[in-house]
């Protein structure tokens, strides 16, 4: 799958409390959550984000609370994927489980600025910076994760497992 979008760039340790503050967790509807996505770190985000846009950050993106509301809010806001130097582990699981693609690529993060246009090929992990004419390759997923992703997330994967168990 090919994704195209503009970059919203952040620094290190972006935590799930700023991605979606707890004051909005009395609901779990992704569209409602998306109205407040990134509010405490970037007031402009909700107004500026376009379908297909890409979030980029440095290290430990998504640290803190395990709230799945965080990747759900990001996904519902129209973001097509997140590229970072590294992700916090619960956020990583949550995003993969719900089908929000994450890519780890130090060079792409180092060489990209906010507002740059990217083209991302999820199957090959190739990240093209169209604004700067540069190409990078993300770290490949381990086999198991690739299987989970191609199944369409954890729920679909679990359904398939349960069916094969019964056979």
């Amino acid at each position: 799958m090919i994704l195209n979008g503009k970059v919203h760039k952040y620094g290190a340790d972006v935590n799930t409390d700023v991605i979606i503050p707890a004051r909005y967790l009395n609901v779990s509807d992704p569209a409602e959550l998306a109205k407040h996505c990134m509010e405490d770190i970037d007031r402009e985000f909700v107004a500026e984000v376009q379908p297909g846009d890409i979030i980029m950050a440095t290290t430990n993106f998504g640290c803190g609370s395990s709230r799945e509301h965080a990747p759900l809010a990001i996904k519902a806001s129209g973001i097509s994927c997140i590229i970072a130097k590294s992700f916090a582990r619960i956020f990583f699981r949550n995003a993969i489980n719900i089908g929000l693609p994450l890519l780890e690529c130090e060079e792409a993060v180092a060489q990209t600025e906010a507002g740059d246009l990217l083209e991302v090929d999820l199957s090959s992990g190739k990240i093209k910076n169209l604004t700067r004419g540069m190409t990078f390759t993300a770290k490949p997923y381990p086999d198991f994760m690739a299987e989970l992703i191609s199944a369409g997330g954890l729920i679909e994967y679990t359904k398939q497992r349960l069916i094969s168990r019964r056979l």
Partner: protein
Amino acid sequence: MTLVEKILAAHTGKEKVSPGEFINARVDLILANDITAPIAIREFQRIGVGKVFDPKKVVMVPDHFVPNKDIASAEQAKLMREFCYEQGVIYFEVGRMGIEHVLLPEQGLVLPGDVVIGADSHTCTYGALGALATGMGSTDIAAAMATGDIWMKVPPTIKLIYHGTLGEWVGGKDLILFTIGDIGVDGALYSAMEFTGEAIDALSIDGRFTMANMAIEAGAKVGVFRVDNKTQLYIKSRAKRSYMVYEPDGDAEYSQVIEYDVSALEPQVALPHSPANTKPISQVGDIEINQAVIGSCTNGRLEDLRLAAEILKRKKVHPRVRCIILPGSQQVYLDALREGLIGIFIRAGAAVSTPTCGPCLGGHMGVLADGERCISTTNRNFVGRMGSPKSEVYLASPAVAAASAIMGRITSPDEVIKP
């Protein structure tokens, strides 16, 4: 193998597992709360199995926004409650509950050698009892409720050795804040932390819960302790089923070994807006506070309340400070009442609440306004964590929070209790 590898191997039916390996581990307990359960239930229903794999191994606790603060949160709690009734899973109602990570061990639901997954990042708390417990998201919990197992990547283990004897007013909270300050919020990313050494042997179980609770604040998957006599004593009156005690092998491989001598360690404070922004209390400077919160899954146990009461006894909370005390469970509340601690708090001018997460996540019962400062015994001080994005949270032990509540500024217990 390390302690963590031993537990995972036993739950995977393998002789041996190694860091980096993907496994499917059998789970002994699955947890969700009033925030994470609604999504987990929705996803569980999509799987289409109808019934959870074993209702005795699923527990749901309303603790974040309860007693419910508004209609929306009441709807979420209702959805969870009805699912629990229908499925027959373990459920604790308001008036009988506690903050999940205080409640579950206290009720004997978590035992050594268990694999526990919870849709809450502080599920790692149970590592204090020698269990492998880790936080996940709602979808993970949904899948595990259907199958009884979950995919995991075996983490490498970092061994942390604490030498020496802790000074007065220094405990588990100070050890873990100091450690996170040293290694950083991603210092143990994707890893297990194993806490050892003579200072750990001397630490109470409550102190160990506090340390394991904040392993996630260093990015760790789990924080574990070996089972000793103190653990056995804690478990003895609570366990209603058998359990296994695992020990690391003598030749276990650790990805890192970190050693500290903590004899001279001062009480620690994490300044805004990161738990790694830690300083010894003598270097914090003059910081006035508006609120002091004592409680939470980090420091809401009996020992924590005893410590706070020791400092607040026959003293008054500063006229400009709101001091809010949240016992971690109904049992802790009752024990504190019997010991006279609740009377001490109320006479000092503190507000005592029914158990709830409340202010810890900026939910209710003590949300901060613009520009307000709070000293708190909780575990996170991110921007906006306790309310306004323009408020500030300082993390510390119950002793430091109680002393600061009296003085109206962040201070060491030494200033309040003269020897």
